[in-house]
């Protein structure tokens, strides 16, 4: 039986196990939308295509599956770009479907034509422009394989509208033949042994882990390793939850807004196990001093990450979980437990001197750190925390106290304001039985605020807490610290429009406002218990800073070093 290209696309998506697509219709994808009516795939209508790509991203992070989004040609496709770049920077598996003008019109500047294949080349793992309807099943199969395996990332499929309409004999693809794509998953045994030897010889080891632990599902192996070698663990912002922060070995996050003791320890360590990380500049600060006393083992599935930013002593290319299992096996050949009492004592001295304590006690005015710490206490273990970008993001990273992997969704590499709300929507759809809490800022939420309509229409019980300080806070903080408090373009007075409570109500969502410390717990608990989406405008102290802080390009140990 013959079917059209759009139906072939949908059947191919079904074969990949796709359950939901986040999208927005238009002329170039109308055939695909017609086909969706006869499919079991759920379509979630976002209110802007940027919301579709972020929602697919949030869905992927929360589910571990490939997120799928769909936009029409031209502006529909270009509106997806920020979300594609976001997924690319954080290595999130995503398949992006875009409509294109009819193939016979490509290159003519036709109505709603944009070369989305060309526009997205630098920010995709791979991309396709379909020119023959018979290619659809193969392309879809390859796209999902590429998106999810190796170092995950976004894959774009651009489908001209005439191809969507072309009738043909459909045959599902079963084989994948990509001669240039063979990710290495098992670490080289010699290198694994070299890593084990290096650990055994070290007195002051440290584990520095990141998003690669999440993507490979290696949190359990990481915990085993930390206990096996008795080493402290610090995580990147992408690695939060990879290691439980209530474990005495946890040093929390490192880097620009990391704990003083994590940054101190990474500078003093004689061995560093960098696991699923990419030595981002927000982590390393000035690279000349980062880990300057350590022999470095770097485990990563992407060979290009090895020595991209930092020279390493033992490179291991492979899937983090596979490599950690092999490393544990190697370490078990000599099971004597290492004594690190001196190392921990030194770290604890710094921890006691420079604790992360801005959320301790009950402040006289409502502080954002306090609000975040209380929200963490008021929610249950399975809660998924989604954040936007800015000060609230860093305070959440510092004060939530993550204990489980894949419970933290943050636009980390690209730092995309507006990511939070659609990503929370995607996460709630992926995990309908878990509570999803979005912590956002008064600046960030307004970048994709129209997606409140989706939470409302789809009855998604996302709990939204705006840390409203009336500023674009992170930029204000930089202007305060580096530009002598000459505030420029950062003020959003808290009582100026919009009234977030009324706005929530306009979207059919419950709106609340919390203004004082004394009632915070009661009102926040009420919001969390509400049976449906709720938006809470939390009025917090206006000029609170995120500390500790390493200035851009500074040495990560400086904040402590200067005072010790």
């Amino acid at each position, binding site marked *: 039986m013959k079917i059209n290209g759009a139906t072939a696309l949908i059947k191919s998506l079904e074969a990949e196990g796709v359950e939901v697509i986040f999208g927005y219709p238009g002329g170039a994808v109308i055939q695909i939308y017609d086909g969706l009516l006869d499919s079991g795939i759920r379509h979630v209508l976002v209110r802007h295509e940027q919301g579709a790509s972020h929602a697919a991203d949030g869905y992927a992070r929360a589910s571990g599956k490939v997120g799928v989004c769909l936009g029409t040609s031209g502006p529909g496709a270009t509106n997806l770009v920020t979300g594609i770049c976001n997924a690319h920077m954080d290595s999130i598996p995503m398949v992006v479907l875009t409509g294109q003008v009819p193939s016979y019109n490509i290159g003519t500047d036709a109505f709603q034509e944009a070369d989305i*294949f*060309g526009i997205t*080349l*630098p920010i995709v*793992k*791979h*991309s396709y*422009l379909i*020119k023959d309807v018979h290619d659809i099943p193969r392309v879809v199969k390859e796209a999902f394989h*590429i998106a999810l395996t190796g170092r995950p990332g976004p894959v774009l499929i651009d489908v001209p509208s005439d191809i969507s309409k072309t009738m043909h004999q459909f045959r599902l693809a079963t084989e994948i033949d*990509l*001669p*240039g*794509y063979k990710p290495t998953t098992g670490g080289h045994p010699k290198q694994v042994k070299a890593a084990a030897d290096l650990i055994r010889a070290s007195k002051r080891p440290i584990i520095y882990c990141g998003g690669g632990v999440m993507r490979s599902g290696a949190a359990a192996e990481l915990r085993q390793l930390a206990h096996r070698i008795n080493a402290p663990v610090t995580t990147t912002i992408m690695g939060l939850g990879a290691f439980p922060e209530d474990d005495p070995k946890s040093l929390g996050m490192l880097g620009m807004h990391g704990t003083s003791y994590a940054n101190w320890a990474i500078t003093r360590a004689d061995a560093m196990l960098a696991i699923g990380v990419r030595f981002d500049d927000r982590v390393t600060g000035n690279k000349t001093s980062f880990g300057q006393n350590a022999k470095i083992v770097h485990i990563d599935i*992407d*060979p*290009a990450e*090895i*020595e*991209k930013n930092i020279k390493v002593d033992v490179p291991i290319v492979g899937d983090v979980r596979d490599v950690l299992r092999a490393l544990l096996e190697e370490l078990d050949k000599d099971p004597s437990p290492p004594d690190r009492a001196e190392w921990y004592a030194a770290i604890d001295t710094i921890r006691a001197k420079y604790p992360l304590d801005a959320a301790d006690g009950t402040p006289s005015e409502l502080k954002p750190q306090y609000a975040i710490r209380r929200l963490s206490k008021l929610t249950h273990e399975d809660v998924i925390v989604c954040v936007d970008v800015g000060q609230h993001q860093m305070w959440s990273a510092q004060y939530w106290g993550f204990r489980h992997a894949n419970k933290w969704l943050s636009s980390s590499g690209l730092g995309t304001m507006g990511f939070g709300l659609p990503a929370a929507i995607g996460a709630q759809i992926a995990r309908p039985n878990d509570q999803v809490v979005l912590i956002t800022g008064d600046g960030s939420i307004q970048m994709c605020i129209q997606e409140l309509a989706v939470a409302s229409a789809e009855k998604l019980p996302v709990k939204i807490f705006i840390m409203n300080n009336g500023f674009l806070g992170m930029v204000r903080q930089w202007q305060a610290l580096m530009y002598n408090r000459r505030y420029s373009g950062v003020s959003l007075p808290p009582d100026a429009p919009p009234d977030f409570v009324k706005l929530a109500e306009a979207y059919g969502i419950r709106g609340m406002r919390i203004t004082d410390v004394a009632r915070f717990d009661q009102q926040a608990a009420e919001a969390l218990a509400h049976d449906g989406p709720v938006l809470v405008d939390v009025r917090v102290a206006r000029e609170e800073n995120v500390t500790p802080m390493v200035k851009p390009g500074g040495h990560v140990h400086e904040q402590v070093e200067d005072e010790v």
Partner: protein
Amino acid sequence: MKMTLSVLVENKPGVLTRIAGLFARRGFNIDSLAVGQTEDPTLSRMTIVVNAAEHPMEQVEKQLHKLINVIKISHLDPDASVGRELMLIKVTVPPAKRVEIFDLVNTFRGNVIDVSRNALVAEVTGDSAKLKAFQELMAPYGIVEICRTGKAAMSRGK
């Protein structure tokens, strides 16, 4: 330091753009790039000459490897590889000087492939030093136009 990469890629639309774009994004200038189909019509071979210090070159090779359409990258050692470039050069030639120029072209084992009343076109192949030398010899006659292919190279032996 000049480095020559031989890159085997799938012969598909957009592959050249992906590779050229990668070099541009990483801040590398491609000195020369020659590409053409191989003995297998589904594959193309690119010869890319770049000017790079060793460390970033390794990074570029790794990034190239990440492109799905790239099958193999070989680093061509100048002592263990052969490379050629083709130059077409159009020179102004008064009839009285024609024989003189024919002699020079022959000396460089080139061919004159077109002659008109006041100009001729010669083809010369060789390494860049040879082409440069020939170009310098032709300069006094008046070079009208030059077109070069970029270097094509492969390793010696099996």
